[in-house]
């Protein structure tokens, strides 16, 4: 068996699926690289010549949920080559991103969401915009997405269970959507709700589950308007699989993964702090904020380090966890004056 030190593993080995996408973009990046060596962090990926940083491997290709999706995915703005919308850390391979999921509606095991979501329906899909907004209503997803150009972002994802991934998402800034629906001055929080499809979600039917479905999450409005907050409709250049939260999900990379709610059907603007599912279940374990913080340990899991996936028993990558998952520059100001040990 070949045993490698973590440092010997090149990003290109871990993500063979990263492929050349657009020749033109390659030439442009190549020229910049020749011009000045400043772009070095992005070098490994740039050398793969990718405009989009990564594409799903051909043998795992996904079909569009409905024909209109194809047009939507025809033009995607590639991720820049610098933080915070991009990281040069090795991507978590596509097959791990789509096979290792927490999505309790489909079951408790990490493999349940990919194995048991075959009947999940993502078309037609509508999202209800409710509460303190000028333009409430129930909108078809196609109309929700219409004015937004899709872009790629490569974010770290840190789960409260002390593992982490690096994922190339496709989507658009949450702030752009919020502005469109014109929240009123009373909109101080945004609440999100996941779909409940009893017939296609075995976890929802389990008699021993104590979650009060639907799953709910929430953000303060200034958190929601932050440039990092992202609504994803794809990953690895392709459509979101059910297990990753199809057809539309939240990505808030400075918070533990459970805040990044999946398969959204309702966005509710509120005056007061909404209840959130995990906080309802165990308030002493899961706070409303749930910002990644190596110094505030969760009762179940130490948070000072994380297992960067994929792990291999013989070359394990355990790295120190960073405050706000390394996105402090963008978000630390949101929590100025707050005691993060109390507002966990």
């Amino acid at each position: 068996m070949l045993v490698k030190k973590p440092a010997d593993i090149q990003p290109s080995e871990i993500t063979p699926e990263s492929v050349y996408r657009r020749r033109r973009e390659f030439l442009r990046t190549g020229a910049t690289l020749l011009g000045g060596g400043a772009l070095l962090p992005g070098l490994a990926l740039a050398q793969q010549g990718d405009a989009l940083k990564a594409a799903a491997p051909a043998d795992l290709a996904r079909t569009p949920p409905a024909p209109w999706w194809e047009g939507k995915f025809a033009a995607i703005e590639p991720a820049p080559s610098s933080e915070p919308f991009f990281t040069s850390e090795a991507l978590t391979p596509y097959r791990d991103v789509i096979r290792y999921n927490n999505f309790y509606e489909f079951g408790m095991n990490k493999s349940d969401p990919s194995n048991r979501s075959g009947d999940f329906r993502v078309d037609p899909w509508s999202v209800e915009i409710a509460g303190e907004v000028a333009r409430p209503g129930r909108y078809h997803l196609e109309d929700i997405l219409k004015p937004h150009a899709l872009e790629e972002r490569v974010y770290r994802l840190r789960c409260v269970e002390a593992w982490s991934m690096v994922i190339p998402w496709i989507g658009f800034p949450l702030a752009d959507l919020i502005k469109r629906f014109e929240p009123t001055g009373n909109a101080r929080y945004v609440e999100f709700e996941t779909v409940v499809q009893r017939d296609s979600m075995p976890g929802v039917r389990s008699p021993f589950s104590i979650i009060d479905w639907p799953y709910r999450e929430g953000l303060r409005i200034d958190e929601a308007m932050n440039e990092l907050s992202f609504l994803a409709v794809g990953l690895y250049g392709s459509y979101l699989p059910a297990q990753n939260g199809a057809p539309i999900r939240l990505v808030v990379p400075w918070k533990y993964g459970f805040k990044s709610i999946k398969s959204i059907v309702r966005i509710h603007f509120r005056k007061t702090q909404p209840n959130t599912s995990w906080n309802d279940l165990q308030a002493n374990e899961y706070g409303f904020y749930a910002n990644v913080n190596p110094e505030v340990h969760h009762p179940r899991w130490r948070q000072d380090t994380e297992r960067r996936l994929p792990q291999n028993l013989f070359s394990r990558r355990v790295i120190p966890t960073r405050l706000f998952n390394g996105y402090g520059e963008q978000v630390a100001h949101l929590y100025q004056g707050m005691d993060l040990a109390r507002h966990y």
Partner: protein
Amino acid sequence: MTIPPGAAKLAVFALGLVPLALLLAQIIRSDFGPDPAQELAGSTGEWSLRLLLATLCLTPLRQLTGKVFFVRIRRMVGLFALFYASLHAFVWLSLLLGFRWHAIGEELLERPYVTVGFASLLILVALGITSPKAMVRRMGRNWKRLHRLVYVAAILAIVHLAWVSRTDFGETVFHGSILALLLGYRLWRRFARTAGQAARR
């Protein structure tokens, strides 16, 4: 047909190694997915509990069927439970904690599920050490008293499992019911026996 006791014991021994073989096969084929540490912690934990419950079934089985065979294999099955529980604790120490020794104390104090699991493991170790025939003879009545703690170990393991489970208590309810049944059976027998003695008096 009678199977020679030696052969039957050997068969049980081989059976006890099957989970280990399965785990090793999964490791070799990297079937554990991207987070093998967590998966290994889970499967070794489950096997410890299963074998512990299996151990507890043996005395009632002997009483219900009259077959001595069941108590003959009791020590071995119990030691297998200890073996997998130790493996489980080792996976935790090595793969999840990465041998950060300073963290062990903190974990034991701050994570109730670790405290409870550790207590359960300590009992299993004590029972394992005192399980050889010579110890049984040497300890006399105290041996039986000590080994009743196996029920405490099992209860602690169920509590540990309940604490580990986050939202779905199916597994806890399943294993907990088996333990409740076994405990109930013991209490019922004891009650029946004392009642019988009282009636004879």
